């Protein structure tokens, strides 16, 4: 699985209340909910983000709540993948479970906003086509990659139960 897109760069400790504030969680429709994604951090995010682009962040991305809506809204907006120096564990699981590709990559701090990057999930490599740099990311076990490639755990389980 390969993902290629432009980087949207954010810092450390992007928490789930920044990704989607609790006060909106009573909105049921994910499309509606997604209009508030990242609004406390970057009011331009929803209007300017182009499907296929990639979020590049610092340490502890997705810390805080277990709300899966945080991963849902990013996927709904067409986020191609999230690359971060590290993730909070529940967000990481949730992203995999809904089929949002995530890679943990120590060196990704060097990637700048607007750079065109490419992720190879199976080989856990991140290529920066703008700067020419290549980074090694933390590799994921095959069964986890299978879940992501299936489009998430629902599809994966559906298939494996057939």
């Amino acid at each position: 699985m390969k993902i290629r897109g432009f980087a949207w760069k954010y810092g450390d400790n992007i928490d789930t209340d920044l990704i989607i504030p609790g006060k909106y969680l009573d909105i049921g429709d994910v499309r509606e909910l997604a209009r508030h994604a990242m609004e406390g951090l970057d009011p331009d995010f929803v209007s300017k983000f182009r499907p296929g682009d990639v979020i590049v962040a610092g340490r502890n991305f997705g810390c805080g709540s277990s709300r899966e809506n945080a991963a849902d809204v990013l996927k709904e907006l067409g986020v191609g993948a999230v690359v971060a120096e590290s993730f909070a564990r529940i967000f990481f699981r949730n992203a995999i479970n809904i089929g949002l590709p995530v890679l943990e990559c120590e060196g990704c701090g060097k990637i700048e906003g607007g750079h065109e990057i490419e992720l190879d999930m199976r080989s856990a490599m991140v290529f920066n086509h703008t700067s020419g740099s290549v980074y090694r990311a933390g590799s994921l076990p095959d069964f986890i990659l299978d879940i992501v490639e299936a489009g998430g755990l629902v599809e994966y389980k559906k298939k494996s139960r057939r």
Partner: protein
Amino acid sequence: MGMTISEKILARAAGLPSVRPGEIVECAVDLAMTHEGTAAAAQKFFAMGGARVWEPGRIASLLDHWAPAHTERIAGVHSLIRSFVAAQGIKNFYDIREGICHQVIPEKGHVRPGWLIVGTDSHTTTYGAFGAFATGVGVTDMAAVFLDGRIWLKVPPTIRFVIEGDLGPHVTSKDVMLYLLGRFGTEYATYKAVEFAGGTVRAMSVSSRMTLTNMAVEMGAKAGIVAPDDKTLDWLEPRLGFRPEVMNNDTDAVFELEIVINAGEIGIQVACPHSPGNSVPLHQVAGRPINQAFLGSCTNGRLEDLAAAVAVMGGRPVAPGVRMIVIPASREVYREAMGMGYIQALSEAGAVICNPTCGACIGAQMGLLAPGEVCIASSNRNFKGRMGSQDAEVYLASPAVVAASAVAGLIAGPEEVAGK
């Protein structure tokens, strides 16, 4: 080589003689806890091809985040969950009257030492206060647990905080946790288990220990653990109807790190906006005017927390212009607090007492903040926008500090308001 409590629990749940940190194991879940997340989990469960949940008796579910329903949509979510649990034969279901999951689930006897518990809530780590390995998952993970009661987990290494010595006056387990967060940061224990040990922890009540394990997730931890002792068992016995077995660290258990902390160096702490890690000694922020004081949540909404607040307030009223919101963590706590006269005292002081619910903690339904407002809260998170406006400020502190601040109208310690 010996195993830690967490490793032993995961080994047992995985049906293996032993496990090591870093190993990915497939575990059988002893208890699956769900709140309003049940609705989304159920939907995904059916989408996965599920028809009947694996074992209804191993699921405990309740309604607490938006209770009672404040919008028609939430009413619909609640109604859907009621139908789902009824149809699936899930008898351990607690409707809106009982209170917050992390208080109600142990109270109702659904937690045992040595159990593997997963819950659709990040503060599921709370149950580690009873020697369980308990961790938060999302609703898709939960849907898969509904299917077959199994989940893959990576065995975490354990960081052990050994806290020794006496805590100073008005210094509580909340201050200990805020101190640790301030000193070590909010990602210090990401993917790891954190054990709280030492004489200071042994001396704490079960309720106080729950505050530690509750906020272990604020350090990124997958689980927070306190080794069970007689206090734990005395608390559990009447609720379970028997005295449970316990699992303890092997004497040669290997910890990734053991950090000894002298309780005497911990003072009263306040976490400044917008992170529980921005914790500083009280005197650095004392005097900051507040608009709201919130006493409640699964972190500090228990009987001893209300008692501490009442004692600090000492019959003095909430300062003019300040809103004090009090939310007992459960119906049991509420009723006991009434029996003790705490609810009456807080109401007389001018506090608004709400039904047991998450309420102001998650800023979803009540007690929201306007732009520019300042709140001091006994809850666990002060992320930007968590309690309403993105431009509001939330400070986290112990119940004693919340109560003192409510009386003073500004951030204050218990000793500053005493005698005024």
